[in-house]
């Protein structure tokens, strides 16, 4: 067997059913091995999209997604997608071709030191230097990518290693001695944490992406209900808790729900679950949580105290920690809170207050109304992702996720162009689900050529294009902080998205009114082909509320 065959065999052994990629000189042997493989290769039009597809696949399957690229430019094109996955702790295996061993370091054609480039944005990067190492490398790569705090792993294989014919063995067990992710809940700390939670008068749960990564949805809900604690999420944690639940308050942060931003600063105890206290979520580190008890549950010990000193830290997989916490809470017989509990009354009060104060943008068709309409028509288990910018923040504010784990976005890196290919990856992971990308025109432009993939590979998704023909979020900042001095934000009505969709064999529908929009969504759902709904959004519509960078949650501007 040759190295590339061993690679494909090892991937099959890991249960890989999709590989997203694009070939070139240095990975030709891998592509030759794919011809006889049982897994499905999805040819992309740009390697960045291959990485985003693998990422989207991973976020729905909760298993590593796989992407392939050739050496040099192919490999560097993957990097944005790898960095995006790293920032959001998404498991991924990126396999790149490399120039032959003897050429490494000679500045050979299409040689890039991709191990060096990928180092800061991968959990690990391997370069097997003999074909016999490949199966073990693949097994280790999956183990590292999927366990503990997940993340991308790169495997860079020199071309001669791919071609070498050797007697290759496939190990059943591997061990990585420097890598021992902590999984089990830390019982002694958990005991303390539970006692503290029970004593709190105004507890609040702040659920982060870790809840989604570990699939701890029912455990989180059980804990919230036992404590009768309101639940806010980070943006990454959006959809870790049903947003129509009576305790749900939605995301906090720069463009969080106003009531969520307000209630969290009134709490006396914050229970952060799988959240990393990012600046976008908590505003100023020094102000956030001041005078409150902070309990932090996380699988990554390095997150404890990184941005925020905490009072009690429980290290371990949050699903295991929450499960145990729920058992402990149930034993402790938490005092039953009634509807008259002042803290729960305060929750209701804040929701009502902001519902009345924040005015809608005065137009027949607005971003908010469009997203409410989308929610109304979409099945509750539809998978929704987003691009980056106003579109993303509107989604955070106005699109309620009902079925846990059905929403994701590039939250850590904020990568424009992520959503569309990632939605195709999600569709590959769950073909029976309706998949929607809530997009901005600028972001969609970055990876719109994935329409070819969606159409040809029969992985239809809906691009819900909130088209303001603007790099809207940047324009909003220029309006707010730079006295409306616009620079580099106008897309000038180009391209025509209906024609663009049609050019790829997809369906394009323009919506200029709420009525058009309703028809368009229904038409998109009925049709089995990729659809771009080109929605006319006013370029002046801002996203509110807004916590300006460098300020605290209390400084939230509501635009009212």
């Amino acid at each position, binding site marked *: 067997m040759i190295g590339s065959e061993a690679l494909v065999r090892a991937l099959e052994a890991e249960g890989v059913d999709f590989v997203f990629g694009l070939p070139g000189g240095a990975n030709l042997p891998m592509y030759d091995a794919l011809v006889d493989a049982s897994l499905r290769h999805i040819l992309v039009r740009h390697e960045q999209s291959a990485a985003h597809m693998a990422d989207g696949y991973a976020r729905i399957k909760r298993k590593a997604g796989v992407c392939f690229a050739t050496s040099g430019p192919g490999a560097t094109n993957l990097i944005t997608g790898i960095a995006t996955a790293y920032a959001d702790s998404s498991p991924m295996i990126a396999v790149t071709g490399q120039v032959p061993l003897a050429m490494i370091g000679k500045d050979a054609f299409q040689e890039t030191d991709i191990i060096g480039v990928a180092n800061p944005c991968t959990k690990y990067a391997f370069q097997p230097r003999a074909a016999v190492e490949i199966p073990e490398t693949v097994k280790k790569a999956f183990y590292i990518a999927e366990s503990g705090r997940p993340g991308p792993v790169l495997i860079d294989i020199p071309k001669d290693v791919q071609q070498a014919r050797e007697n290759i063995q496939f190990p059943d067990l591997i061990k990585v001695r*420097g890598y021992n992710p902590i999984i089990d809940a830390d019982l002694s700390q958990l005991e303390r944490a539970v006692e503290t939670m029970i004593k709190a008068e105004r507890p609040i749960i702040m659920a982060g992406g870790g809840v989604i990564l570990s699939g701890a949805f029912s455990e989180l809900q059980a804990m919230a209900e036992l404590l009768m604690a309101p639940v806010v999420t980070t943006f990454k944690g959006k959809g870790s808790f049903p947003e129509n639940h009576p305790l749900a308050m939605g995301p906090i942060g720069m463009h969080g729900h106003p009531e969520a931003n307000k209630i969290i600063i009134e709490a006396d105890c914050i229970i952060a679950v799988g959240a990393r206290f990012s600046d976008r979520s908590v505003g100023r580190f020094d102000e956030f949580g001041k005078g409150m008890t902070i309990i932090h549950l996380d699988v990554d010990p390095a997150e404890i105290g990184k941005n925020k000193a905490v009072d009690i830290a429980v290290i371990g997989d949050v699903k295991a920690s929450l499960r145990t916490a729920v058992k402990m809470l149930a034993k402790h017989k938490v005092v039953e809170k009634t509807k008259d509990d002042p803290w729960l009354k305060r929750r209701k009060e804040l929701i009502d207050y902001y519902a009345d104060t924040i005015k809608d943008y005065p137009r027949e068709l607005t971003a908010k109304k469009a997203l409410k309409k989308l929610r109304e028509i979409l099945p509750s288990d539809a998978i929704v992702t987003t691009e980056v910018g106003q579109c993303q923040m509107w989604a955070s504010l106005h699109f309620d996720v009902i079925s846990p784990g059905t929403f994701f976005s590039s939250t850590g890196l904020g990568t424009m162009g992520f959503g569309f290919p990632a939605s195709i990856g999600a569709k590959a992971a769950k073909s029976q689900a309706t998949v929607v990308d809530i997009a901005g025109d600028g972001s969609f432009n970055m990876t719109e050529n994935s329409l070819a993939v969606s159409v040809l590979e029969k992985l239809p998704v809906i691009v819900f294009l909130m088209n303001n023909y603007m790099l809207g979020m940047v324009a909003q900042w220029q309006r707010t902080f730079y006295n409306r001095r616009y620079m580099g934000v106008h897309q000038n009505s180009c391209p025509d998205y209906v024609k663009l969709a049609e050019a790829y064999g997809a369906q394009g529908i323009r919506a200029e009114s709420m009525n058009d929009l309703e028809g368009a969504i229904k038409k998109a759902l009925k049709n089995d082909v990729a659809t771009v709904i080109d929605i006319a959004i006013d370029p002046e519509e801002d996203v509110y509320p807004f916590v300006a960078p460098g300020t605290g949650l209390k400084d939230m501007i509501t635009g009212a």
Partner: protein
Amino acid sequence: MAGLLKTADTLSQDDAESWHIVAALVENKPGVLFRVTNLFRARSFNIESITVGSTEQVDLSRMTITTKTDERTLDQLVKQLRKLIDVVEVRVLDSSKTVYRELALIKMKAEEPTKRMQITTYASVFRANILDIDKNTIMVEITGTPDKIDAFKNLVSSFGIIHLARTGVSALPRGEY
């Protein structure tokens, strides 16, 4: 790596509280030093010195890192190091329970015999060795704690140091510690 390593001058006793020795056992394979130093650079951890060399086990290397930092940053540095797959073990060593040494080579101007005599006397007080002498220069090897090396360096600086090379600190815990 030159930009990463600050001069050893800052490694002094004035802020003993915040001077730390971090010992790590790492995989003995290519790229490990790069991963460690790249981590320090990416997260703006300031380190004073880093040494790496073989150990009693062929597949492991020992890294000794010294850093002047507050407790919180030290905690992060250790946790981030532990996260690296190639790092097998990390310990912060209590300097009172640790033997730590650094070696320095110092080449000085020494044209006049009186100067040479003086340097030789100082060297013997500090248990330093004279390694090389020629018409105009003298080279001394000194081993000890960074403080001791600083003291010697300050003492001889008036003679005119031509070159100074320090190895950075190597450390092992004492006894059972």
